[in-house]
Structure formats: structure tokens, C-alpha cells
């Protein structure tokens, strides 16, 4: 009840802010002014409909619903490697390789037909979920989402491209995740830490270290940072 009221306030605050920004932008009677007004439009849309434009009302499957609107956490991080594009893609597309640099993962098992089983170390017990590859363009992109019924909703993509006239490879990760349930949500928060962007950044650093040098540097025994 209280939450609903809060949502109402949030929505109408959004509309009010958006209206103010649109009014300000248009009052400048200039191209930048129009641009400012335009950027406020999604905010107004969300205020009125309750969802960000583009994510609203698409399909009915669990993952998409769980991650729609402003639900879930979004992370975007990238890294550049001095390793050929096809090598990076080939390494990444073998899902069993992922735990070698994603330190919070225990294992990823390829179940065939684009499906995979993921196990991460949670507080006292492992957290598990299944995912399916929904997009795989060799040397360009791998996209996945969790399968309906999983405790954890996650979707994401890894984009591969070249830089510096083809001498370097760039990897861009776009990850969204949410944990609808209480216990699973806590476990997920533990697994990913307080700052998921930090975790992803470190994972990307590790894959770069592994592919460039063959090892992940460490100053002491035990798992790398």
C-alpha cells in the first residue's frame, strides 16, 4: 500500500520533472533546447505508463518481465585486449571457460542446444540457474537469458569488435539481472558483491590477463582478487 503510494509519487514527480525540462528546453528556442526537451520525453513516458519506453509489455516470459522497466540491475563494462578477435570470441563462446576468469562462478555446464547450467558460490550454498543462448553471431556477439522458472533472472550480451586498425580487440559486456525472491535475492547480492560493476570490471580484467599472459597475476596464495 505504502509502496503503491510511493510509486505514484515517483511517477508524478517524473512527469512534473519531465514537463519542466521539456518547457525549459523549448523555451530556449534553439536546437540544443529541443534536444534537452527530447531527452526528457522517456521520463515523461515512464511517469505516465509506469515503464521505460521500449521495455514495456514485451512478451510474457519470466526473464523479460523480471528485467523490464527499471527492475533489476544493469551493468555495462568494456575491456581492450591485445589478442586477435577470433581467439577472444572462441575462448568466450566455450562457456566452460567462464569460471576461469569470473571468480564468483563455480561452474558453467553446456547442456547442448544453446542451453547451459550455471553454479555460483553463494553464502553457505551454491546458487544455480539455467540459461539459453538467444543470439550468437561468431566474432560479433553472444546474447543469453535465464530460462523461465529460474530463481534468478539474468540477460546479457557480450559484443566483440576490433580497435586500432584491427590490432586490438574490444569486448563490451551488457548485463542485466534481478532476483525476484527473497533468499535468492540475498544470495545473488552476496555473489555479485555490493558493486556489480566492480565485479564485472574485475572479471574482464581477469580474462584480459589470462588471454594476454596465460595467467592471472597474484601476490599471495589463494584466489585472485
Amino acid at each position, binding site marked *: 500500500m505504502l509502496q503503491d503510494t510511493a510509486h505514484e509519487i515517483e511517477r508524478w514527480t517524473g512527469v512534473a520533472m519531465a514537463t519542466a525540462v521539456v518547457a525549459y528546453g523549448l523555451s530556449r528556442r534553439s536546437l540544443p533546447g529541443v534536444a534537452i526537451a527530447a531527452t526528457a520525453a522517456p521520463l515523461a513516458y515512464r511517469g505516465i505508463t509506469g515503464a521505460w519506453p521500449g521495455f514495456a509489455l514485451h512478451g510474457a516470459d519470466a526473464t523479460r518481465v523480471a528485467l523490464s522497466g527499471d527492475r533489476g540491475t544493469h551493468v555495462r563494462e568494456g575491456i581492450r585486449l*591485445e589478442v586477435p578477435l577470433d581467439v577472444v570470441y572462441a575462448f568466450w563462446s566455450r562457456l566452460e571457460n567462464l569460471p576461469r576468469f569470473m571468480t564468483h562462478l563455480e561452474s558453467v555446464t553446456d547442456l547442448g542446444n544453446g542451453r547451459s547450467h550455471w553454479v555460483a558460490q553463494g553464502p553457505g550454498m551454491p546458487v544455480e540457474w539455467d540459461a539459453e543462448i538467444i543470439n550468437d553471431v561468431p566474432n560479433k556477439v553472444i546474447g543469453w537469458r535465464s530460462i523461465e522458472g529460474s530463481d534468478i533472472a539474468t540477460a546479457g550480451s557480450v559484443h566483440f569488435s576490433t580497435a586500432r586498425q584491427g590490432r586490438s580487440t574490444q569486448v563490451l559486456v551488457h548485463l542485466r539481472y534481478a532476483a525476484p525472491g527473497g533468499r535468492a535475492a540475498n544470495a545473488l547480492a552476496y555473489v555479485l558483491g555490493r558493486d556489480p560493476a566492480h565485479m564485472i570490471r574485475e572479471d574482464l580484467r581477469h580474462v*584480459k590477463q589470462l588471454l*594476454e*599472459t*596465460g595467467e*592471472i*597475476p*597474484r*601476490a599471495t596464495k589463494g584466489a585472485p582478487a
Partner: protein
Amino acid sequence: MKAVCYYGKGDVRVETVPDPEILNPRDAIIRVTATAICGSDLHIYGGYIPTMQKGDVLGHEFMGEVVDVGPDNHRLKIGDRVVVPFTIACGQCFFCKEQLWSLCDNSNPNAWVAEKLYGYSASGLFGYSHMYGGYAGGQAEYVRVPFADVGPLRVPDSLRDEQVLFLSDVFPTGFMAAENCQIQPGDTVAVWGCGPVGQFAIQSAFLLGAERVIAIDRFPERLALASSFSRAEVLDYSKVDVPQALRELTGGQGPDACIDAVGLESHGTTLDAWYDRAKTSMYLATDRPHALRQAINACRKGGTVSIPGVYGGWLDKFPLGAAFAKGLTLKMGQTHMHRYMPRLLEHIERGDIDPSFIITHRVGLDDAPEMYQTFREKEDSCIKVVMTPS
């Protein structure tokens, strides 16, 4: 094994710690035969370097014998005699490929800490805080060397430890400082600080074709060494007005290049130096850049200021306006060790230079606590301490 460990500001102890082990495939373990205390170790000793922890093994200038190698290290063999660069570099990242070895992207496991402070992280360093990787240092009987198929340089038996030990840091650091000056024949180079890096910068400036080098310090033995060993002209800043003297010595034009081999703990007798002291003592500033300010102001128009001295934080009253007005070039950073070591070894082999000229104290590892004190206070005419662990 025995190792020199950090326990806090002004507190260094020799402790028994576990022997290092091979942790990664390209590692090597070195039995240390000679190790030195660096001026930058005094920054740690003085409490200026953040992210040091109690018990950290100190030391980044060391050499010795390879006693173990990892399974993927195909370059070193047990028994090899090597000097180890203080910066750790992987050899395969963008920066290593560009010869910017001290900016290696992969060797610092705690890069994210440095990134919070500096935007991006430089390479990992031996015995120089957790922000730089938390690697145990070489003031110990043994040390683990990561990426040991890239860094360590084999040295011939014909050269003594004392002749090659300083390839681990101060000789290449002084050399890069001079190389950064882009010296042209006939140039005059002024060097602030006549510690080991300053001495090697003076030597290297002459090696690279400088006509005159003017050395600035206040300790008679350091000025004497610069004058006698390297034929530098010397200025005692406690006795003369340095900017005035530099103008006179250069016909009013100023030195073509200035080297700040002092760094963040600069002393001085002028107003700004006391201001720095007051601010840093109240934690209102992190560094005391007196020498750097003077170097920037003294440098001729269009000249180069080269900074091998270490800085760590945010500088106060930094005269960027003067640097801009005079169109100066500023060059700085940790030494790209791997770029210089083979070439400087050749100079030593040819007899162009015997780096052992800076050594004033030769002791065992147990004397480290006393020597840190002696070196910091520059007691007993101390310029360079070399320790033999066994």
C-alpha cells in the same frame, strides 16, 4: 627466511617469514645475493605511501640466483644469476608492446585500488604497497618474481654484484631521467637532488652528450661525489640562491633541461618549502614539491623538466602557469626498466661506468632497521646502503 618488514611509520623490523613459493606458471624464485635500500623506500618509511600493511616485506632493488622456476618459464634456468627490475611487466599487453613497461596493464592484481586514485593503474611493484600489487619485496633471503621470463636480466660472472645491482632501479631511473631531457650537444642540464638517482642522472646526462651539468643539493658528500666522480658543477642550496646562481651560470638563459631527482619530500629554505611542511604536517597536502617548483621556474623557455622523483598525490601551488608561459615539456613516471637494462649492462661491461661508486654502506640484512634510520637522516655521509642477506 629472514626479511625486512614494514611495521609503521619509522618502524622497520627484520622478521622470520614463510619462504616464497611458485604461485603462477611464469614465476621464478630468486635467492637474493645483494639488495639495496632505495630513496623511495624512505617515502614508505616516512609514512607517505598509502596502502602499506604491517608485515609487508620491503625492497625493490635486488639481484641473485634463480633457485626455482614455474612450468611456463622457458627463459630462466636454475642457477642463472640475474638482476630483477623493480617494475613487474607481463610483456604482452599494449603498454609492454609499446615499450612502456612500467605501465604494464596486467601485473598489478590490485589495479582497481590505483584506478580509484589515478584513473588507471601502473605496473605492479616489488615491496611497494598493496595499491601496487602487494608483492613481497627483495630485502629478504628469497623473493618470488612474477613474469620472470620477461624482467630478470642475466648478468655475466665477470661483473661483481655491486657493479650490476643498480640496474634494478636507480641506474636506469637516472638514465631515463636524462634521456627524457632530449639532450642536444652543448646543452646544460640542472639536477635537483644528488642522491643515487641524481648521481646516475648526472652520469647519464654526460653520457648522452650534455656539455655541462649543474648539481643541486645541501649535503657536502653528495655534492663532492657529483663534482669529483661526475665533473658536475655544484650548488649548495643552503648557501646560495639557486635560481639566481642558475641564471648566472647560464648567461641569464636558464638550463636547457631540469631534472627533479628529489620527489615528494623536498626540503628547502624558502617560504614555499615551509608552507608545504606546514600543510603536509596538518594533512592538508600530500606532497612537498619545492624542488619541482624551482625546476619549473628555473628552466629556460621551451626547455624540458624531467621528473624521476616520486610524487603520490595532489600538489599544492604547482606553477603550471610558468610551465605554460614558457612552453615547457614535462616528462615523468616510473622507469621503463626493461627498455634500458640490456643497454646499460653493455655500458657497464665496456667500462663506461662502474655504478658501485655510490655505495657508502655495506651491511647484512639484520642491520636494516638501523640503516633505514641512517639513510633517512643522511648520517654518516650515507648515500647508498647495500645489504647481503646471506
